[in-house]
Every structure is written in structure tokens, then in C-alpha cells.
């Protein structure tokens, strides 16, 4: 989390999310990737007789599934290329390489893959390449680690071209594709003021000059009137629960142990509730209209975050009458 250099500086921090997505391959891509695991490359014959490698799932002209898959390559010819001097993490090679469109022998379309040519000077359109198989099987297109200059071996590992039925059992039916996204999350100037005040233990909202409603967290503009909001209002750390649920569901990425009460907390003097935790009592004791007060983390742990308030707890006293908050539901 970066340190602000002045009151107008918008706060920002890294937001990284990741998930291991799965890919159900279906009959055509399943057959293609099963063949890759067997060190063979398949293409699909199109309605016009041309062979597409990799195979299409649906014919680009007739939209029909391929009637037959045929073996292509393993040798191929570069039809166009671009040199990548500085590979990034997750790319096929960690040394400079060429991204190339490669038309495999027997195919009429080109596929994209990496060529380990050593230097851009060694790359040219029309160059002959052959696959270098990786140590993995069943990883999909990365079963081919890359292509490298040269003709395929004349005998032995090269099978003769033939027809492969789509009815062949696809033993590679699913791939796992981990995806990670890293964002720089930047908040608005209005929310920055709110967060900087939180770092000092204060709660700051903004009042709309038109409707006079107080928004916390402030947004810099009123969503109803569409006008800028600059008038800051300090609010107490007490309020009421307007409504809530008790979360009993554990899930991937969850940060609070279940069960917990997720509540809409309406601070005294605010005109909109925000979501926070209610602890300090049995979840069954939480009620709509219950008065609550903030429980702050120790001061030395404060940062520019609403997490400085660890949770809200019952403040005692009579519940707010329903009519006093019904319009906030």
C-alpha cells in the first residue's frame, strides 16, 4: 500500500485475483489434445476440403462440426513471424524467441506457436521448423514446448499421414487453466479523503449540495442528483443495523470465518448504510434497528482502510423504531 504525498493524492494498491479455471474440451478439441499427448498433431478437414490445424470445433463456412480429423506435420513452414526480445512469465520460453504462424505439412491454415531460433537473424518467412515436445503430456497445446528450425527426423517418430476418427476416445477431456490478474486499484479523491481520515480514526462523509443527503463512504458525486459533493461531514462511530444476514457458507477466497453477521450499518447522521461485520454477541441476538458502535483495531494497526474498524458490536439502549429506518431498506 503506497503512502499518499498530499491530501489530493488518490490512494492506490495492488489487487491480485487468481483462479484455476477448467476447460471442458468437447469431442474435437479433446481428440486434438489427446493426440498431442500421443505426440501427434491433428487438423480438421473443412467443407471446402481444406485442412485446418489446429482443428476447428465448427466449420467457419457451414458451422457444422468436422467430419474427420487428419494427422498433419510434424514438420511445418513459417508463414509470418515476430521476434520477442524480452519474454514474460508464463510465455513458452524464457529466452528471446519468435512468435510464428506455422503451416504444418498437410494443413492449409497456420497455427501460432513459439520458435526457438536463438536470434531474430535466424528467423525468416519460409523457414522449415519441427516441434520440440515438452516433458508433459495432456497439458494441451503446451505439450509442444516450441518449434525449432529444421526438418523433422526422416524416420522413426514420424508417423505417416492418415485419417483419425473423431469417435476415438478422448482421454484428455479437461484442462486446468490457472489465471492470475494483477490490478492497480485506485480510489477516487473523495474516497481517498475518507480513507485518510480513517487512518486517523475519523469517519468522513460528504453531503450533496442538492438533496442534502450524507454519503459515507463519499463518492465525490451524488448518484441521484449527479452533482459534485465536496462538503465534508464528520460522523460518529455509532449507528444502527438496518438489515443483515448471517453468513454460514464457506467459500473460496473468504476472509472472515463463518458464521458471521454481514450487516447494513447506518451511522448516526448518514443517509446511506454500508456493509460491515457485527460481532460481540451471538448472531441470533442481532436485530433490525439494533444500536451498534464501532470496535476499532489497536491504533498502531490503523491504515487507510475501513478494516480499521474491526467490527461493530451492540451498543445497548432501545432499538430504533422501524419507521425511523424503513426508507433505508
Amino acid at each position, binding site marked *: 500500500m503506497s503512502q499518499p504525498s498530499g491530501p489530493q493524492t488518490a490512494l492506490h494498491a495492488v489487487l491480485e485475483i487468481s483462479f484455476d479455471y477448467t476447460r*471442458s474440451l*468437447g469431442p474435437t478439441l479433446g481428440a486434438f489434445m489427446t493426440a498431442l499427448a500421443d505426440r501427434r498433431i491433428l487438423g480438421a478437414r473443412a467443407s471446402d476440403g481444406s485442412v485446418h490445424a489446429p482443428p476447428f470445433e465448427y466449420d467457419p463456412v457451414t458451422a457444422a462440426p468436422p467430419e474427420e480429423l487428419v494427422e498433419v506435420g510434424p514438420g511445418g513452414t513459417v508463414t509470418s513471424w515476430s521476434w520477442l526480445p524480452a519474454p514474460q512469465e508464463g510465455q513458452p520460453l524464457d529466452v528471446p524467441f519468435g512468435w510464428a504462424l506455422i503451416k504444418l505439412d498437410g494443413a492449409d491454415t497456420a497455427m501460432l506457436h513459439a520458435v526457438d531460433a536463438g536470434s531474430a537473424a535466424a528467423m525468416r518467412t519460409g523457414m522449415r521448423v519441427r516441434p520440440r515436445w515438452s516433458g508433459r503430456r495432456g497439458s494441451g497445446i503446451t505439450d509442444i514446448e516450441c518449434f525449432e528450425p529444421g526438418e523433422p527426423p526422416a524416420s522413426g517418430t514420424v508417423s505417416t499421414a492418415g485419417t483419425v476418427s473423431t469417435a476415438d476416445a478422448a482421454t484428455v477431456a479437461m484442462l486446468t487453466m490457472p489465471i492470475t490478474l494483477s490490478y492497480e*486499484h485506485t480510489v477516487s479523491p473523495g474516497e481517498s479523503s475518507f480513507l485518510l481520515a480513517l487512518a486517523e480514526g475519523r469517519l468522513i462523509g460528504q453531503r450533496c449540495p442538492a438533496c442534502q443527503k450524507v454519503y459515507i463512504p463519499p463518492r465525490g458525486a451524488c448518484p441521484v442528483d449527479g452533482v459534485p459533493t465536496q462538503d465534508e461531514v464528520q460522523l460518529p462511530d455509532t449507528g444502527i443495523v438496518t438489515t443483515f444476514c448471517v453468513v454460514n*457458507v464457506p*467459500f473460496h477466497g473468504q476472509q472472515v470465518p463463518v458464521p458471521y453477521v454481514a450487516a447494513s450499518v447506518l451511522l448516526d447522521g448518514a443517509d446511506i448504510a454500508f*456493509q460491515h461485520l457485527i460481532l460481540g454477541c451471538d448472531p441470533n441476538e442481532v436485530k433490525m434497528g439494533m444500536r451498534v458502535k464501532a470496535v476499532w483495531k489497536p491504533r498502531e494497526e490503523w491504515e*487507510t482502510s475501513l*478494516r480499521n474498524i474491526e467490527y461493530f458490536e451492540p451498543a445497548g439502549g432501545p432499538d430504533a423504531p422501524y419507521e425511523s429506518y*424503513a426508507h433505508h431498506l
Partner: protein
Amino acid sequence: MKQRAAVLGTGQTQHRSKRADVSIAGLCREAIDRALADACLTGDQIDAVVLGKAPDLFEGVMMPELYLADALGAVGKPLLRVHTAGSVGGATGLVAASLIQAGVHRRVLAVAFEKQSESNAMWALSISPPFSMPVLAGAGGYFAPHIRSYIRRSGAPAHIGAMVAAKDRRNGARNPCAHLRQADMTMEKVLASPMLWDPVRYDETCPSSDGACAVVIGDQAAAEASGQPVAWIRGTAMRTEPTMFSGKDHVNPRAGYDCAQALWAAAGISSPVDQIDAAEIYVPFSWFEPMWLENLGFAEPGGGWRLTESGDTEITGQIPVNPSGGVLSSNPIGASGLLRFAESAMQVTGKAGEHQVAGARTALGHAYGGGSQYFSMWVVGDTPD
């Protein structure tokens, strides 16, 4: 002046928790092939394709419409992608309808899908940005407090949500495509299921499904040439509002109310509860049946639960709601709205099989999305006017 438009055919997949046998493309094609067969058409008779799905984070495929062009049969044709969160299926149907009503095309294919098994929607909907409190807990965590507000505001008895869930699951058993088919579901079983997001129980919650839906919409000439029953689109409406603002009514959102009023005016309907024969309403959590019945004007505010309690929303009732089993029986999120629209068309063309509402001539399709932020609706009938 709008041109007349009609649903010529509908198709949907077998919805299941995991359709590991097909890719995303294959899933879409299953629905498309069934829709084209239902309409007695071939792909080359389609002029344009409109695709809808929920957020890309749900499958981790950015802009899937690009790679799906072949599978959708969209090569050489206009291809549009629509996104309005959970209402996207409905919005997709309405965009396709508007291309016909505007006189741009003769036949348009609307397709919507979700392959929830490729990811985890609960995770995707619960990402906490920096500086915020990590209390998000998926769609259930978002909507459960508003359901609590509805119960408080309306004074509805606690068992209404369970009644809805049991009815929709039993209806799902009549629908061969439904993900959950639970003919023996009862209110007691629902009440005995675990509390997930109190006050929402496990069996009051939609499943996580893989599935797709496709609808072919045509102009008057295409409808008349079809030689079989079509569902005439009698009115459409869409409305939007911010997710959060001071004064937002989370129980009875203004955008939904306004959308319904515009819809009834467009369709010439003055008393929905009397004039609508079947309603396919987006109910992902059971309590949204009474909430939307009020928002849509089938009942006065606070009175929706009485229609449920009296049995009027059963398939044999005065206003059958979700005879297909609804979102509570199948929830491929991006497709769920289009499924509501397709099912409403199936009702007025007499194609709903075991979940057919007897004598249905006018039906509602409804979808909502975001934090009750987007609304899409249509009314279809067995005659053009």
C-alpha cells in the same frame, strides 16, 4: 412505428451442474440446434446473432463472442454481445427483438449461456477490493438482507420462501431440461435444509448450472411463413437504476416497477393478475417470488406472499409462476433470463409439455440483474395484438 416480431422457435440444453462432455461452443450449439429445429429453420436463414452471458470472470474467457463466431453460425453476419449481469439473457432477447421491430432483419438468433462448472461464481462475486471490508458473500450474501427487509415490511409468514422453493422444484420435475428435478420436494424438507445466508436456506437457493438457451425471433413475414404456432411479442421494456443510492428501495426497486408499468402499457394490459396466464419470473432465491409479484403489479405492496400462500402461483393457480421450475431449478446465470423468455414463448405456443399451463395465451418473461439494478421484460401472446 415498430414492426411486429414473434418467437419462431426456442431451444435449451440439458442443464446440469457439470456439462463436462461439451465445450462452451458445444454447449451453445446444443441450444442453437434445438432452437433451429423447433423453428424448422437452418442456420443460413438467420440474418444476425446476438449473444449474451454474465461477467467474463465467471469462466475466465475474455470476450467469448470472438472465438464463438463459428459455433454460433455468425460468420458473414452481424454478431453482437450483450451484458447486463444476471438479466443478460432477457436483455439479449430484447436486443434481438429490437432488431426485428426496427425492420433491420428478418430472422435473428438470440443465444445465452453460462458454464458455471468452469469457475466459481461465488468467488467471482465476492472479490474485495483494497481498503474495503471483506464481508461480501456472493449473491446470497447480497440479497439475503433485502429478503429480511421484505419479510419485516410485508409481515409475511416465515414459511412462504419454503413454499415457493418446494413448488418450483416440483415444477422442475415436469421439465425434462431442468437441472434439479425433485418431484417429492415439500415445504417441510425445504425448512429442514441448512441455513446458508440466514434467512435464506439451502433449498431456497438456485443451483449452479451449466446450460444455454437459444431463441429465434422473426418478423411478420417470417412468422406467417413458419406454418406453426409462434409467440407474438406484444410488449417489451428495460429499465436501469444505480445499485446503491440513498433512498433506493431494495425490496421494491423503482426501476423494476417502472419497467413493469411500461411493459403493461406497451402490451395493453390493465390488470396483470387477470390477463397474464403464465409468468416466468427471475427468482434465484425463493423469497423473490412474492417480492417480484409486488414489484410487477400482480399484487399490492405487501400482498405478494398471499398469492403464494393461497396456491395461486401453482401451475394450476390463477397466476402460475415459473411452471418450468424457474431459476430455482436451473441456473446457468447468463442463460437464465433468456430461459424465462423462452419458457414464456413455449407456454403460449403450447410447447411446454408436462409443464404446460392449460390454455395459456398470454405470458410474461422477466429477468433482473446486478444488485436489483437491471430489469428486462416481455409479454408474448398467441396472437399479434
